[in-house]
């Protein structure tokens, strides 16, 4: 069974991001980038399926600038077999990414697509669902357990009320939640082996996809800083302030 894994290049989760001074975007200048943590979980799940003998080939796909090759190679070092970069300098958004992924799915015909439930930069939580809709594949989102059985997959989902298990006919899209697994790290020999694994580059044009952003960012600004509190002399003053100043009682 062929498994497609999507990986996104994002700001490293340890970095404290700041808006640019002109408020047009987050300042990414000289900032450490990494593979999106949810995507890392997706790669890990695919590798485990391969180790169990369920998956036969894992393809890691990323959509982004040339340097996103680094994140694909991270996936290759973790155990993916080959990579595809759909190279674009455009600020791609969920719908554009989903369309590109659909084109890659059409080409590669995977039985299972595993991807993060969201990326920690945009926090959209849309791409997996959009891809399922575009391809007509079944979807199991927020997975905390994935069990492939013949031509179906049981996905345990983390939902507000607890856990829900759905059975999907393959091919299907699965998006990962944090508890699905704990990703491994790449051993030093595997980092070197990853350099020799095939990595193809395509463009959205070659796939016939228009990735022009549909949503326009008006302004990026930091949340308002928390103001200092005040001390009140007694309960009476507190009640008075709550009533007349804060107007909450």
């Amino acid at each position, binding site marked *: 069974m062929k498994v497609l894994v999507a990986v996104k290049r994002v700001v490293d989760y340890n970095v404290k991001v700041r808006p640019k001074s002109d408020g047009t975007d987050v300042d990414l*200048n000289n900032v450490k980038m990494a593979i999106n943590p949810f995507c890392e979980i997706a790669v890990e799940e695919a590798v485990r399926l391969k180790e169990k003998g369920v998956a036969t080939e894992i393809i890691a796909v990323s959509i982004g600038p040339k340097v996103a090759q680094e994140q694909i*190679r*991270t996936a290759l*070092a973790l155990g993916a077999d080959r990579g595809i970069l759909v190279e674009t300098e455009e600020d791609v958004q969920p719908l554009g990414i989903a369309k590109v992924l659909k084109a890659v799915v059409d080409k590669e015909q995977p039985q299972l697509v595993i991807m993060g439930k969201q990326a920690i930069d945009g926090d959209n939580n849309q791409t997996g669902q959009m891809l399922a809709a575009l391809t007509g594949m079944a979807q199991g989102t927020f997975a905390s357990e994935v069990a492939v059985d013949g031509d179906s997959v049981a996905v345990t989902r983390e939902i507000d009320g607890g856990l829900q298990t759905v059975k999907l006919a393959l091919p299907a899209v699965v998006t990962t939640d944090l508890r699905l697994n704990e990703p491994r790290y*790449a051993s*030093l020999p595997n*980092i*070197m082996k990853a*350099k020799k694994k095939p990595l193809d580059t395509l463009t959205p044009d070659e796939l016939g996809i228009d990735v022009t952003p549909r949503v326009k960012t008006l302004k990026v600004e930091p949340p308002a800083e928390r103001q200092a509190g005040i001390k009140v002399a007694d309960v009476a003053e507190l009640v008075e302030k709550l009533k007349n100043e804060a107007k909450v009682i």
Partner: protein
Amino acid sequence: MPAPLLNERDLDFMLYEFLDSESMCARERYRDHNRESFDAAIATAKQVAEKYFLPIRGKVDRNEPRFENGRVEMLPEIKQAVDAATEAGFVSSTADYEVGGMQLPLPVATVANAYLTAAGSTTLGYLSLTTANASLIEAHGTPEQIAKWAVPQRSGRFAGTMAMTEPGAGSGLADLITSAERAEDGSYRITGNKIYISGGDHELNENIVHLVLARVKGAPKGTKGISLFIVPKFLVNDDGSLGEQNDVALAGLFHKMGGRGQTSTSLNFGERGGAVGYLVGEENRGLSYMFHMMNEARIMVGTGAATIALTGFQYSLNYARERPQGRLPSCKDPLSPSVNIIEHADVRRMLLAQKAYAEGAFALCLFGAQLADDQHTAPTEEQRSQAKLLLDFLIPMIKTWPSEYGPQANSLAIQVLGGAGYINEHPVEMFYRDNRLNPIHEGTTGIQSLDLLARKVPMQGMAGYHYCLALMRETVAQAGAVAGLEKQAEQLESAIKRLTDTTETLLAAMADTNIDKVLANSVMYLKLFGHVVVAWLWLKQGLVAHQALAQSQHGDEQNFYRGKLQAMRYFFSVELPHTERWSALLMQGEDSAYAMRDDWF
């Protein structure tokens, strides 16, 4: 928020700005590499460190291995950590692809290892010895010996040790008496007692390969009669399987001040007629083989000391930012909230001193690692021999300066935490204990200072000394032309002058007066030279930071570079002037210790 093990931004600065490690990818040996694979290796080290080493760091310290029924009992988690680091490839990160290595340049591997050291220098100790042992066999063993003893160490099946010290021969190795007698089959039978053998017995691996220094019967006295032997815990059959237990017995464990999780053993060889040993190279050349690895081993000691200083600095910095206590002297309002202790200038002094010591020491060690790599991989023969010359010269400083000032930095970390630093709820007291070994092993500070003044300075017609001075003067000239660094350039120039005057005076005195009297001050000379070298490397860091600051737009980046420049200024204002006093004492032939008599104590 927990303190970071190390400052990632600083490590990037050291590797890619202070050194230009990316340029090493142009060399044949490293052509498969780029910054991406360097960073990936470092990231893996960080993950192994945080996942396997850090969670057990305190536990390893508090649960020393025990000697029970002739064997060692230790925490099972140590094996998990050692196995994880081995499987991730850290025993062979710099080794050739053929033996399963990653062929990482030494400076990059040094940074990767720094994470493992910071998260558990004691646990890492088991692996470092194995790496050193395998490297020595690879350098001087036969192909059969490499296949039989080194390859299984690289893969993690076997562990390795270095067995040198004896009850009667520590710093004075010339007096060792462990003996070797040639057997009919060409192997040897080893008899004697070795002490302080780190990792000398444990069950982390299937087998332990001891590299033992011993004297073949009839060999010359002194260091010229010492040979090197492979003496395994279990004999190994030709198919690689384990045979019977060799005649090596664990006599007992030592209980140490620091590094408590690593066994320090007393081993008896030949209680039942002689342990089977295999000669490495030729008879009577053992010490030269061992010393071949000594530069690398001494860089490793320095780096370990610098790294523990770095992690103690990060820990106390984090604490100082979060611990509210007291008010500034200028604040008279007792109802005002107390400030975080980093607001107190004296706390910042202790943090800045740690930064100056720890980052200065680490820069020195990385520079040493670069030279140790260059001596084999630099593009031209001339560059390779220059690198070797400078490394040989600098080794006493690379080993000693971090070992002396690393524990001082850790002592300041304890002081920043105050009472909290003195108890074992925080790791800084452990850092201090762990680091305190470093001025002792792989040649004490005293031995290093004799090596510097009596051997390294005069070596090859003072070629290493002069080359080192020339490089320092180059930096003085560069910095002198940069607005904002002229003062430091001038200070370094005067310090170099003091150093050369002092050196000339001492060498002249050694030639025509009592050499014992001159060498009585060798440690002070080492301090003098060490401080000048570290000031030089701080100025080099300052040059990089100064230029980068001018081009930097980002607030965090600007703060980082300002911090570098401030630590440099601190070192030049507060530390470098010590050289004036040391130089004066040396020049006037300070002799109170030399003239002191046993009876007078």
